[in-house]
Every structure is written in C-alpha cells, then in structure tokens.
C-alpha cells in the first residue's frame, strides 16, 4: 500500500439511497472522505478492496444503544460496544443516557466523547431529559446540546409527567434536537414481564397490555402537535402504536419512529417456546403476531422510519435467572444487519435499498449526524456486506462483553464483512 489514506472499493454493488444509486460502481476514498463514486478507473497508488459480488453501503447508523459506560463496565464499554458495532457493519451509534450515573450534565456528555476517542466507530451521546432520569425536573438540556448531545431521552423510563414533557418539547425547539421518547404507562405496566395476550394468559405471566405504550404515544403526538414540537418515538412495538404514529404523520405532526430488530422478528409465542428464557425479556415486550405484521407494514409504508437494535447488554450472571427476576434487554449490534437482510430482504419483504434507508440514511437524519450516505465529500463510513456469507449466531463469539441474544444458534445468510469508519478500516473479514 503506497498510501494508507487512499482506497478504492471495486466491483461491488453500491447501494446509496441518498443519491438513488443501486449499481456496480467503484468507490474512491481519500483523506477519510468519499472522494468519488464511479468515473475513470484508477487502481494505482491506493489500497484496492475487491468487493465483487458484495453489497457496498453507507455504514449503518444505530440511534438506540446502551453502552453501559460509565457504571456497568462489566456489561459493556464504549470500546467493546463500538467493536461489536463495526463487526455488524455499524459505523455510528447513539448511546442512551441511562448509565450509572446517568448522562444528565454536560460533564457526562463530554465524558462520552472523551471515551469515544478510543472507540471503533463514531459514538454520539443521547442526553437525559430529566435530572437523574427521575422525570421531575429538566436536566441542563441547553448546556448538553452545546456539549454535543445529538438528542434527548430518559430511555428506560417514560416521562409520566405531561407538564414536564411539555416543557422539554418546548425547550428542545431552541436547539432543534429530537426528544426520543420511551413510551410506557407505568400504572399499566409496573411489575409485569411479557406482552398481555393469549400467550401470557395461558402462562399465567403478569403482562403488559399494548395500550400501556400506544396510549402514551397518543398523548405525546398530540402534545407535539399542540406545541409544534419535534419528537421521535423509541422502540414502537404494538400495532395500535403504529396506527397512532401513522395518523399523527398524516396530521402533519413532526414525529419519527423506530422499531427494533427483535420486535420485527420475534413474538410472545417465542417467549413461551424458549421455556421463559430471560434472553427473550425486553421492554417493551415481544408482542403478538399481528403486532409484528403491523410493524412490517409500518416500515414499508413509512410509519416507521428506522430500525434500531436497542442493544442492551447484561452480563450472564444478571440474566441467568427466572424470567420475572431478570432485567429487560437483549444485545443486537452484531446481528442486526444480518437478521434484517436474511429475514426481511431475502424473502422480499423489503428491498436492500429500503434496508439501507431504515438502518443508515433515515436514522442519520433523525439525529442529524453526517452519516448515512456515500455522497462525494461525506465521511468515509462504509460497510461491505456479503449476501452469501453463511454463519451461525453465537453470543460467546461476539465482541460485546455480554451475550444475551435471543438469536443464539440462528443460522443466517448474509453478513457484514468489512467496515470502514472515517477512512480507516475498522473491521476486515473480507481478506480472510
């Protein structure tokens, strides 16, 4: 290699929804940026990456992760979480504020950026809406916005107090950052562990009804409409929630929404079939079959804008227990692209362009970061995806410090094999 800052990724099928590109083209990288796509072939003076037969896409963007640092470095760190990300073709991650202590001050935001200097991909902090995530007083949102927070969220907990949320919505308008809302009516959900439906009824499991989520979303889109504020709805899981978001969009509310990979692929019946394995316990819970169908419809018709992981690492000693006792959450950074490709793209439920929109372009727009495209001059954040690569999911084999995946043992076709972040190769399984 004559010059390590110059690359050409040749012969791959380039998918870049931002520029409506889907064709075999060479991608040129110089000085950490995309210098051009296509044009006169030049394989001299630069590293040549042969992507023949592969998909070349903008690095994926995951706007909903939990990296557990500071406080629970036994579960994950910014370093291990970001390594897991690049192994999954993800080049930008937004980490939620519910660490210990929470990221509810500009010092916390700066701590994340400081630790992110050693990360394998871009890491963007989402800061708390309320002090201590208590839902009582606003955190110093302006100060945190100036420190570089890309959004605000008390994720993990809802904002039950509508007056506080009203003020947060109004306040956040001054710096044009999204409020990312965890929607849950605690009076309907507290102390409950799975979706309320036929499966929970038969199992005798204390269960959370869908309306615990959809009812709060209805309140909050109406509040956003009233205040002309911008909101983003986290991990939409119920069909009624999809309907509410869709109607809100039709009414012109400035709302976006995300769905997780696991809610798109698993249901409450999987909870029972697993023998109440706590790796199938998350919040919101895995819903019923018709909810899953509604989410698919939502990603197809635009009610849902983004697919996220809600990567929530917990060490085995916390998860290896009775279902009711286990903490909520599953990991997902290393499996999301493969799962979406194998289970949604390959069967023709969505096309690969839609996949890149949902997992890169759209999420980058929601938090307004410079990512999600292969446009000339953009950050050279690139994922090469091998659509034929067969592999088996194994929690132990992942870079994450935790292995709480509900997809253990799944045999998948399609895998990210090479990832570039800001012009540097962050993951390379291609040359093996």
């Amino acid at each position, binding site marked *: 290699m004559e010059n390590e800052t110059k690359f050409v990724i040749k012969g791959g099928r380039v998918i870049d929804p931002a520029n409506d590109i889907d064709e075999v083209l060479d991608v040129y990288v110089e000085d950490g940026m995309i210098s051009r796509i296509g044009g006169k072939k030049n394989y001299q003076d630069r590293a040549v990456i042969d992507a023949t037969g592969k998909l070349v896409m903008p690095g994926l963007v995951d706007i909903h992760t939990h990296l557990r640092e500071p406080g629970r470095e036994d579960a994950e760190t910014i370093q291990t979480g970001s390594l897991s990300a690049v192994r999954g073709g993800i080049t930008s991650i937004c980490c939620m504020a519910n660490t210990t202590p929470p990221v509810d001050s500009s010092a916390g935001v700066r701590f994340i950026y400081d630790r992110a200097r050693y990360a394998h991909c871009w890491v963007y902090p989402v800061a708390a809406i309320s002090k201590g995530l208590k839902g009582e007083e606003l955190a110093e949102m302006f100060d945190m916005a100036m420190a570089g927070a890309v959004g605000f969220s008390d994720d993990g907990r809802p904002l039950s107090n509508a007056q506080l949320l009203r003020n947060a919505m109004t306040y956040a308008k001054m710096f044009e950052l999204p409020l990312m809302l965890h929607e849950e009516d605690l009076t309907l959900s507290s102390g409950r*562990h799975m979706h*309320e*439906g*036929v*499966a*929970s*009824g*038969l*199992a*005798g*499991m*204390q*269960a959370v*009804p869908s309306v615990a989520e959809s009812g709060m979303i209805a309140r909050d889109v109406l509040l956003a409409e009233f205040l002309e504020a911008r909101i983003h709805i986290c991990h939409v899981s119920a069909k009624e929630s999809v309907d509410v978001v869709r109607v809100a969009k039709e009414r012109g509310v400035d709302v976006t929404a995300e769905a997780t990979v696991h809610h798109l692929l698993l249901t409450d019946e999987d909870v029972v079939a697993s*023998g*109440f394995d706590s790796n199938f316990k998350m919040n919101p819970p895995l819903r019923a079959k018709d909810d899953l169908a509604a989410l698919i419809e939502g990603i197809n018709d635009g009610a849902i804008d983004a697919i996220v992981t809600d990567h929530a690492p917990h060490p085995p*000693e916390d998860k*290896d*227990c*009775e*279902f*009711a*006792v286990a903490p909520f959450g599953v990991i997902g950074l290393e499996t999301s692209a493969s799962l979406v490709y194998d289970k949604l793209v390959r069967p023709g439920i969505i096309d690969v362009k839609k996949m890149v929109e949902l997992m890169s372009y759209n999420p980058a727009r929601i938090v307004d970061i410079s990512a999600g495209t292969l446009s000339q001059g953009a950050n050279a954040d690139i994922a090469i995806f091998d659509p034929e690569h067969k592999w088996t999911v194994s929690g132990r084999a992942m870079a994450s410090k935790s292995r709480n995946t509900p997809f253990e043992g799944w045999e998948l076709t399609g895998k990210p094999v090479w990832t570039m972040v800001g012009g540097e190769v962050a993951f390379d399984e291609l040359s093996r």
Partner: protein
Amino acid sequence: MKEHLLGLEGYTGDEILEILELSKTFRQVLDRDVKRLPTLKGITVANLFFEPSTRTRMSFELAEKRLSADVINFSASTSSVKKGENLRDTVDNIGAMKVDMTVIRHGAVGSAQFIAKHCKTVVINAGDGAHEHPTQALLDFYTIREHFPDFKGLKVCIVGDALHSRVIRSNVFGLKALGADVTLCAPSTLLPMGVESWGVKVNCDIEEAIRGANVVNIMRLQLERQTAGYIPSLREYGIVWGINSELVDLMDKDHIIMHPGPMNRGVEITQDVADAPESVILPQVTNGVAVRMAILYLLAPRSGDIHE
C-alpha cells in the same frame, strides 16, 4: 411419563388416567396400619419452597416419607428480588449434595422449567407463579374420579381468580384433555386476556355457570386482589360469587363440592357448603398424598417394586 412434571399442558387424557390409575394403589396403602413402602429407599428428595405453603409441602413430605425416601426441606422467601444466591446456584448446591429429585414451589412463572433446564435433577413443579400446579390438579381429578368414573361430558364449574390461579390453569389443561365440559366463573377483572381461546366456557354469572354442574371447584380469593383494585371488597365478592347452599341447589342432584384450600369461610364458600355431605374437600387432601406418591414413583431415577 415424562422426565419431569412441570405442568399438565400437553398431557393427553390417557397419560393423565394412567397416573390416576396408579395413584389408586398408593391410596390403598394410606388406609393400611403401616403406611410405608420401601419404594424410594436410597432416593433423596429436596422440597424447595420459595413461597409459603403448608399443605402442599406437608403433603409432598408425607408422600416422600411413606415411600421411604430421604427428605430435606428448604424454605425461603423470594417475594421480592433479594440479592444473594440465585436460584440456579441454590439448586445446583443441593444437587451437588447428590439429591435425586427436587420439588419446587416458586413465585416466578417458568421457575420449574428453569431448574429442569439448568440443573441435573428430576423436577416436580409444586406451583410456579400463576402458571401451573400440576399435582393439585391431578389430586382434584383423582377425587372427581372417585365419584364420577367417566370425565367425558362431566360438567365442572371452576369459580375464582383465573387471572392469578395456577390451580385453575392446570385444571383447565387436564380437564380439557380428559374431555370434561368446563365452565370458568370469575369477576370480569379476574379473567385473563385470551381466556376465550382456552376451549372452556366462561361466564361471569355464577347462577348460570353453576347450573347443572356435577362438580364445583371453588378457588381461594386472595385479599391482595382487593388492595390491587381487581375487586371492590371481599364482602362484595362473597355476596356475588361466594358459593352458598342456594347456588349449590342449582347444581345437578349428583354433585360434589371441592376447594384446594386454604378456605376463606364466608368469602368464597359458606360454612354450610364447606361442611356439606357432598363436600370432598378433606378427601382431596388425603388423595393428594397418594397422587404425589404415584408421581414420585413414576419419576424416581431408580424405581423399585411398589409391591415390595
């Protein structure tokens, strides 16, 4: 018989009848002067009760002792998530002491499955949350069968908190497999989502539900249901759903009255009904020991000859 007894969901009528038939042998033993068999000599059974229980724990312990098993008991409260040793370690440690069988009562749904999956021991579920309580249901069926030899078309009315009751779930799974005609009756707030898909009749009107029934199985109403807001008061529950002699008069002439205990006399059942000649509440308790002996015999790693 399967490797463990975790629940009755998935059992066929024939599999259940086989257990009930075998239980007869053990029931006869209980009427002997010497109520003891050497069947489980050398087998060690641990009774792990993570929830308070008097009769189920005593019933299991008696069943084990009458089969000459060595018995150890462990009781702990895990009503809330207490930091300390986790369930898996607790059971693993008991397993490391070379315990052959484990009887577990625990407040979490799936806890018996969890133990069966992770620990090397035969597991008998003595109640996991509101999920299943298979031995209670089997002793109920044994008791029913003493009066009604054929389950097909038998009218069974189950009254009580279907939302939180493991006894009801196990009864429903088993009675459906046996071909009985089951009606569930409860206040609407104590019926779970999806109960209409259980394959049983559901009726909140106790007069309609009990009319013509051969069996009424009355569940205990927990005081917590009032404080959690499911029902306004025990008094109102007693007035509307409490089984009194007027309601019993609506049953088929040929009928029995059941209750898994412990009873709240004056709430879900009146004194007259509890002590009526048709009440089989105490025989249920006796039969429970026999049925549990049969289960232990069937699941024991090395079963000896029950006839010595």
